């Protein structure tokens, strides 16, 4: 059961690596992606399910493990029906032991399987921090290239609705500091499917961050299989007055802001980064060369956040093109409050982005 024996994704090529007997599949990323337009409208959660199911049909080494993923069909119904299709040996209900089953996945991945681990919420990954930050990103390095750790960890990240301080983590603000993992944060069903399929076939560990608030979002998702490359931003809006960079759920607020600003003749380039590591600085630099202004929208806390990193890389690589200092829009710098009005103010939103862009363009 090597990738060689498991059929390759259509058009993919097999790449050898000493750490992976049988090699790994690299999809054909030169092939243009299918249209985002169409009438095959499904939910974000269904897009995730399709991505996992398609890959699991192809490769029996893949299994899904997590709390309530099987009999309960997933706390958020992402894995609905997968137990019936793949059986209890591949869709596995685990006890509430995140550190234990995350570590189990590391061992299983080293042995040669391809685990997908669902954290009911990334907030609960803190009890597994040692496994996912010490073993997962460093195994290849510590073993001098003998073993990688091809596990996809996925689940809800960021504020749900009034879930309070312990259940609203944006772990990317912490975990992105650590070299050795790829971090994906999709904003819509189309991307979610294409990026999760890429994550599953990728031979390196991937942290895949979803949002409870978007699982019900609907959009066209093509019938055909497609893989979206990591590190290539998507541009839902075009404009030459200001660049707005975001990822995950706040992309929607950025788009709302762009549409509102357009009415006042302010044209905004909205970049959905899709992945944080890799971070598509090429697209950001290309954009600010035109706009000379940038606003970064990040739904995690500000201090030493990904927004800080984007500001820093823009300064390092695009200082001379800037007519105004980069502006970041983060959540407020407090534990996530429960009260509806406090939480609403705490999170990034359209108005905050509009105000930031206006500051940047000076009107």
């Amino acid at each position, binding site marked *: 059961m090597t990738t060689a024996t498991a059929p390759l994704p259509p058009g993919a090529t097999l790449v050898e690596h000493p750490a992976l007997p049988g090699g790994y599949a690299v999809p054909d990323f030169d092939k243009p992606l299918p249209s985002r337009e169409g009438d095959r409208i499904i939910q974000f959660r269904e897009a995730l399910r399709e991505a996992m199911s398609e890959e699991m049909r192809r490769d029996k080494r893949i299994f899904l493990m997590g709390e309530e993923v099987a009999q309960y069909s997933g706390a958020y119904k992402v894995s609905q029906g997968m137990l019936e299709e793949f059986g209890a040996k591949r869709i596995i209900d685990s*006890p509430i032991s995140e550190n234990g089953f995350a570590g189990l996945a590391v061992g299983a991945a080293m042995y040669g399987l391809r685990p997908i681990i669902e954290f009911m919420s990334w907030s609960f990954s803190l009890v597994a921090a040692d496994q996912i930050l010490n073993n997962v990103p460093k195994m290849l390095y510590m073993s001098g290239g003998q073993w990688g750790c091809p596990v996809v960890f996925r689940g809800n990240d960021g504020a749900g609705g009034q879930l309070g301080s312990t259940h609203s983590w944006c772990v990317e603000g912490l975990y992105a500091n650590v070299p050795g993992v790829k971090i994906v944060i999709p904003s819509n069903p189309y991307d979610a499917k294409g990026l999760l399929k890429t994550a599953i076939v990728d031979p390196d560990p991937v942290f895949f961050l979803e949002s409870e608030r978007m699982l019900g979002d609907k959009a066209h998702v093509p019938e055909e299989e497609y893989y979206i490359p990591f590190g290539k931003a998507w541009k839902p809006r075009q404009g030459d007055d200001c660049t707005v960079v975001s990822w995950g759920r706040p992309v929607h607020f950025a788009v709302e802001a762009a549409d509102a600003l357009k009415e006042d003749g302010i044209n905004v380039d909205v970049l959905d980064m899709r992945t944080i590591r890799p971070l598509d600085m090429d697209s950001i630099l290309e954009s600010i060369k035109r706009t000379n202004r940038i606003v970064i929208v990040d739904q995690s806390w500000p201090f030493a956040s990904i927004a800080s990193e984007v500001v820093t890389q823009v300064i390092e690589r695009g200082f001379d093109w800037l007519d105004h200092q980069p502006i970041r829009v983060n959540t407020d*710098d407090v534990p996530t409050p429960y009260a509806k009005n*406090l939480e609403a103010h705490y999170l990034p939103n359209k108005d905050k982005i509009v105000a930031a862009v206006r500051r940047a363009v000076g009107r």
Partner: protein
Amino acid sequence: MSHATAEPDTSMTQATQNQNQLASQKLPGDTLIQWLRDMLLIREFENRCAQAYQQAKIGGFCHLYTGQEAVAVGTIQSLNHDDPIVTAYRDHGHALARGMSVEACMAEMFGRLNGCAKGKGGSMHMFDKPNWLFGGHGIVGAQTPLGTGLAFAARYEWEVLNQSVTGGEAKKKVSLAYLGDGALNQGALHECMNLAGLWDIPVIYVVENNGYSMGTAIGRGTTMADDLTKKADAYGIRGEIIDGFDVIDLYNEFKPLVDWCRENQKPAFVDLKTYRYLGHSMSDPQKYRTKDEVEQFKGKDSIDRLASRLMGEIKGENGQPVLSEDRFKELQAEVREQVKTGIEAAEAGEMSEVDAELYSDVFINPLPNMSPIRDYTHGAKNPLL
């Protein structure tokens, strides 16, 4: 469901073996009636919670205690008022049993300033300092080391400080750390149970074993589900299995255990059999169990059971049952009224002002330059303090 068939008798405590000295026999009838009232209060409160949640007056996760009332009431009544307790997110029952007002509890879920945590915590975070409730907590198992630390500190008071931390007299205390059966499989519990066994920390780990962790029947997630005392044996901790469907029997088992832990300053572990009638949280199709099973357990309802005992076998001086049909009806009416007025008071509370509250309660001693966004402040005083 395996856990329901376990035999409480296998591990009876002294007290229950010598029937002549049942702890409950020392209690006046009015006390037992008060317990019934507390249980009715919790039941009514949770019913109104469900309504409020449907009306979207409550947000986030909301885990109701309906069915487990005897556990909070029976265990808390076995304590002194200043024995500290800590629990998980299914915490409304503990808050009310400990004496939190309906207003403070409901206002918290309404996200208002008159809530016990000023609306910053929500349903999963019921904190009540005057009543020694050190919080509901949202991360499964994470409250168990806290409960261990509370007992550690209480022991430190009389062993090291020779006075209480507030200057008063130090006394021997016990703490209760409540957890669900699903929390048994978190590393945090393992680590603190070893500490408790090693250092004789007077904490009692109360497993509110309602048989399910969300949709996972205990046997599907937890080894030795049929004899959880094995989990206690691993740390040399006294373990008991107690039936939680009759609050008087529960008290007769649990109170002597509390006294033993207090006197000997040792930890204990209790597999407390109970059952939740409603879903895990407000959104739960409950495909994992049959209606029959739920009905079966409702047949053992702890409120009905206590009411019938008080209206039957349990007699007062006058040889009459301590509780009359009419008094019972009154109690139910009182409780309905209490919850109704409490909710009205909760709704009358103010929403917090963003500028005053968002950046307050982050630091006791806020300093300049803590945040790139703005300075932290002090907000409104907590209504319970």
